[in-house]
């Protein structure tokens, strides 16, 4: 098994290198560079000077080489908009995104799995049909729009939850720890709600399909024949085997979660990796934005590795 893990690790490293390469070239090949923006009467000579300072006038391959070396040193460049090293800016923002996305993944999978199992065991019932319809509706909401509507309803209209940020900008520092915790949780509720709302449908549908596939299996019938109560048959025997493909799904959905984070963080003013990316557009912060792509991808790769580990723990057949 160790060999398998080492192989997966090696694969992941290759993928990360490829990601960095792809990001670099794709972004570079797009028309324009950080210094070519229109407007603002900056003479060409000044732009050229800055291009030279940042090495943009060197041959592309050389730039690529230097870039890769820099990345390995942990140096992602300088962020114009944040006036600081890109690496420290990202280091600040990343944990907040991990928190939000991590919780969202957990919630949407917990609810989605439960919903899927219930739908499968009550196949064809009104519950099945109605919940499927409701879920498809939520699935069809654009992330940013769902976030906007939720913000509007729950924060502005009904003033139930705070409207932005991670903590109260004014009073947080003066509160006792337990109140701080409450504040943090209150700020988490809406973004989490929005996130879960748009992602739970996919999980539920997949789980339902997996369960419908597995419930007629022979070993499920064996469990019944042994005298296992129906609850145990469904939740212990059938669900356990259905979790394997769910973990695979998790790995596949990670990029989508991160993409969604961009919009959700932007709407709720959650200062994570996603809003860095969202803001970078306006500010044309080339180094920052390139780094977010790479870091975002690394998060996905690591997430996939962890999903693989989880799968090996869950399903003995995978541990060749």
């Amino acid at each position, binding site marked *: 098994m160790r060999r398998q893990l080492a192989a997966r690790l090696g694969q992941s490293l290759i993928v990360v290198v490829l990601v960095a390469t792809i990001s670099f070239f794709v972004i570079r090949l797009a028309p324009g560079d950080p210094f070519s923006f229109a407007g603002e009467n900056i003479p060409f000579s000044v732009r050229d000077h800055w291009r030279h300072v940042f090495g943009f006038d060197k041959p592309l391959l050389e730039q690529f080489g230097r870039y890769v070396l820099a990345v390995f040193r942990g140096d992602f460049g300088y962020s114009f908009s944040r006036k600081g090293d890109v690496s420290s800016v990202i280091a600040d923002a990343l944990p907040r995104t991990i928190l939000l996305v991590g919780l969202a993944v957990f919630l949407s999978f917990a609810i989605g799995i439960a919903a899927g199992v219930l739908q499968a065991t009550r196949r064809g019932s009104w519950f099945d049909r109605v919940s499927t319809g409701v879920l498809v509706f939520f699935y069809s909401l654009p992330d940013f729009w769902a976030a906007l509507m939720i913000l509007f309803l729950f924060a502005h209209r009904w003033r139930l939850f705070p409207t932005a940020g991670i903590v109260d900008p004014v009073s947080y520092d003066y509160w006792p720890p337990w109140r701080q915790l409450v504040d943090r949780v209150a700020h988490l509720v809406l973004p989490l709600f929005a996130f879960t709302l748009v992602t739970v449908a996919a999980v539920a549908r997949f789980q339902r399909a997996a369960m419908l596939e597995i419930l007629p299996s022979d070993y499920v019938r064996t469990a019944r024949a*042994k005298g296992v109560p129906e609850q145990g048959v469904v939740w212990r025997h059938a669900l356990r085997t259905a979790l394997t493909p769910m973990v695979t799904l998790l790995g596949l959905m990670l990029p989508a979660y991160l993409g969604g984070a961009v919009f959700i963080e932007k709407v709720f003013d959650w200062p994570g990796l996603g809003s860095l990316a969202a803001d970078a557009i306006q500010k044309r912060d080339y180094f920052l934005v390139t780094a977010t792509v790479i870091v975002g991808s690394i998060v996905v790769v690591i997430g996939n590795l962890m999903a693989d580990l989880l799968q090996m723990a869950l399903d003995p057949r995978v541990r060749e």
Partner: protein
Amino acid sequence: MAEPLLRVRDLRTYFYTENGVARAVDGISFEIGAGETVGLVGESGCGKSVTALSVLRLVRPPGRIEQGSELIFDGKNLATLDEREMRAIRGARVSMVFQEPMTALNPVFTVGDQIAEVVRVHNAGSKQDAWARAVQMLETVGIPSPEQRATEYPHQLSGGMRQRVVIAMALIMNPALVIADEPTTALDVTIQAQILELLRDLQQRFGTSILLITHDLGVVAETVSRVIVMYGGEIVEEAPVNHLFARAHHPYTEGLLNAMPRVGHERERLATIPGSVPPPTNWPAACRFHDRCPYAWERCATEHPPLYPIAKGHVSRCHLADEPKRRAEKHDPLVVARGAST
């Protein structure tokens, strides 16, 4: 005779499908005594598996055991028992061995866990007790290094070993009756023999009754004391095993026996029963075998034959019992005469 262990009376299990009502089991009655091994024989589609599932109430919708069916066991009617009591019986008093060992076991739990689960589900022991008994059971069914094997997963075991595990699961609570549904069909011939021998051994050791379901008459010959032949959802013949092989009465049984390739019997062609098993949504009128029968005459197409007694312990659902002379008038079955496709 002592009170039979299981008494089935007029069992009818119907499936309500889009294509109509499939009368998979259409009124069968039989008994199994304590310590007896009974064989239930027939081709696919005759209802034998459904019979097995019905006894344990494992038939899922759209299938349903019809009202009026009686499955008397331990003084109770299993057909109408409430689910909780039924669960107490499954795996503990009556258990089942299924056909496909490759898929009968849950792939994500260890073999030991799955056997021990039977004990724990019936609250007959703690986790450690259950595990110890499971290991012991593995040894009983002839698996070497049982402590090691118990920690392994099904995919690490061969087909024959998996079947032994399934048998271990079925016997660990010392049930009064084990229903084995084609336990050897999916296995190699040599393994088949081993499994059958195992079943015989265990039966002698524990005094369990066995209902052995199979389409293979060869298997039956070795293992059972009495044979029930099913066709078209009904019992068409029942006899002690020697009688059946020596003097089968029902033309269907005769056909089955003829179709068995036997060493020492020279033949040009393998005999087959012409035609095919009709669909359970549409059993033929009157005698369900009449269009495939080489002896059938007008009465067979109009009058549904009852189970005629032939000899002690031997019954047959065929009008030939009433008009034995007709046996001389052999002809091509209707299905061949009509040119019906197989």
